Structures are given as structure tokens and as C-alpha cells.
């Protein structure tokens, strides 16, 4: 249940960029698709990508995992990661019985301090509406086919609450150390549109 009733406006510079972008594309001085394509190249270059390290710590330290699932904001800060703007983090765990998927109808609701830049599809209208209505079909398009027996839970981010998925640790990684595990964790796995694949070799 969201406690606020309207959408919190982005920061001043973010609004100024939106103003530039919308005016210039309206005047056809810029092509939106070309702009998105360039921004997409920087997806992995924005913000400290700490989410993967949080996941790897939770996989290797059961007491940390417990803290992460009960108070994610504090557990993430424990690793020295901050940069959130007052909103709380909630981490939801994937299990053999439950698969979690994040969505937000607003592009500003994304935990970029832990996940980096939201992918373009995450901000696109079809994902935002269909993830809620037909998550199984959406996941299938991402190449993730889940049996009917697995429950899918959808988490709609708000301005005050940001979610992150704690994916399942893949089989065959029992010998891997935390650093190596963190390298396996992808952004999509922490959004819930993918599972973490085991080591390729």
C-alpha cells in the first residue's frame, strides 16, 4: 500500500534534462530512438553496481542473508553502499517455489544505487503494464519459462520503497568465493527477468 498519492517529481537536474529532451524531440531536432540507443550503451556505467556484491554476500553468509531479508536498507548500508535518497530497500528472495519480478510504472522508481541504470525496456509502457497482467508471458519473452507450479510475485516500486530480487544461487557454484559469485549475478537476475546462470567453465 503506497502511502503517497501522486508521483514524486524527479530532482531538479533530472527535470531540466527531461525538458531539454522533450522539447528537442518534439521539434524533431533529435530522434528519440537514437538517443535511447546511446543511453542504453551506458546502462552498466551508471551508479555503483553494488547489487551483485550484496547478492554474493547473502549467498555466502547466512546471517547476512537473514539481516538482508529483514532490513535490506541497513544490510546494504552495512557493506558501505548508500546513495539512496531516503527511500527504503526491500529484498525479496527467489526460492524453488516463488519467483519475484520487479516493475515500476515510473522510470524514477528504480534502485539505481544498487542496480545501475534502468534498462530501456524497464521504462517502456508494454513492460510496465504487461508485467502485472501477464508476467508469465513477459518472462517467456525474456527466455525464462517457469512451470505453473511456481508462484510469481510482482513488486511495484514506489517513491519510498525500492525492491531488489535475491536470485537463487546456481548449482555448481559451491566452490566459488564471494568475488567470483558476484561476477555471475546479472542486473536482470536482480530485476527478476532472468535466473543466475552457473559458471560457463
Amino acid at each position, binding site marked *: 500500500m503506497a502511502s503517497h*498519492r501522486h508521483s514524486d517529481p524527479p530532482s531538479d*537536474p*533530472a527535470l531540466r534534462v527531461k525538458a*531539454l529532451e522533450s522539447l528537442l524531440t518534439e521539434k524533431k531536432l*533529435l530522434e528519440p530512438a537514437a538517443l535511447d540507443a546511446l543511453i542504453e550503451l*551506458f546502462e552498466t556505467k*551508471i*551508479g555503483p553496481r553494488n547489487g551483485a556484491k550484496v547478492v554474493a554476500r547473502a549467498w555466502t553468509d547466512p546471517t547476512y542473508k537473514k539481516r538482508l531479508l529483514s532490513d535490506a536498507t541497513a544490510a546494504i548500508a552495512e557493506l558501505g553502499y548508500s546513495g539512496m535518497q531516503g527511500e527504503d530497500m526491500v529484498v525479496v528472495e527467489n526460492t524453488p517455489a516463488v519467483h519475484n519480478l520487479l516493475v515500476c510504472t515510473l522510470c524514477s522508481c528504480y534502485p539505481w544505487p544498487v542496480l545501475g541504470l534502468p534498462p530501456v525496456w524497464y521504462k517502456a509502457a508494454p513492460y510496465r503494464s504487461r508485467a502485472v497482467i501477464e508476467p508469465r508471458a513477459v518472462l517467456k519473452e525474456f527466455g525464462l519459462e517457469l512451470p505453473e507450479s511456481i508462484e510469481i510475485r510482482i513488486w511495484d516500486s514506489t517513491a519510498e520503497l525500492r525492491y531488489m530480487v535475491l536470485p537463487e544461487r546456481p548449482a555448481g557454484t559451491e566452490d566459488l568465493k564471494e568475488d567470483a559469485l558476484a561476477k555471475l549475478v546479472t542486473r536482470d537476475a536482480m530485476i527478476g527477468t532472468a535466473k543466475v546462470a552457473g559458471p560457463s567453465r
Partner: protein
Amino acid sequence: MIEPANLASTPGLPKDRDGPVFAEPWQAEAFALTVKLHEAGHFAWAEWVSYLSREIASGAPADASHAETVYYLHWLAALERLVADKGLASAVALAKRKAEWHEAYEATAHGQPVVLGAKHHHDHDHHH
């Protein structure tokens, strides 16, 4: 994509081995806007560099914690000035559009896509 010579000639650009880095999404958007406007022939990169340098020389913005944020606040101010000087979008039009976006966010219930021109037709007593 971005010409390496242009990247190299851009003063103070925060980057790692692979290219520019950003502290927040709007910074990448401001960067991409500038590159695309240049590629569309609206200004030469050297001209952009002179605007950016002038802005950087004007002193640090008061409110910024990250080095990238300080840098991109300069970047954004320089871009707004260049766009106005080139007659692409005036300062007045930009300020007006920014206010419209602000209002659109205020007028949109969470969970709805934010679009310009949204009026306060969402009942403020309504619960999700």
C-alpha cells in the same frame, strides 16, 4: 557512436577504461543529448567544449556530493546555454517545460505513466 577524439578533447570528463561514467541516470541522458545534437550537425564539438569550459571556470555548483554530479551540473548548464544560443530552445521555453513536467508528476497518481498535460483529475482521497 562517440568519436574518441571528441571524448579526449572534453575537459574533465569522468571516465573509466571503457568510456564515460555517471553517478545518476540524468547525467547519461544529458551526455547523450549533447552527443546526438552534435552528430545532427547543430554544433561543432569544439564549440561545445568552449561552452563547457566556460561553465566549469565559473565555479563549482553549491549542491553536489559526487564529483560526477558537480561535473554534470556544469554540463547541463552549458548545454542549456548552447541550445538557447543556437535558437534550438530558449531559456524561457525550457523553464516552462520543466515546470510542466513538475506539474505532471504532481498530478499523476503513482502507478500511472507520467504524461505532459495531466490535470489534477486524480482524486486525492483515492487509495491504491
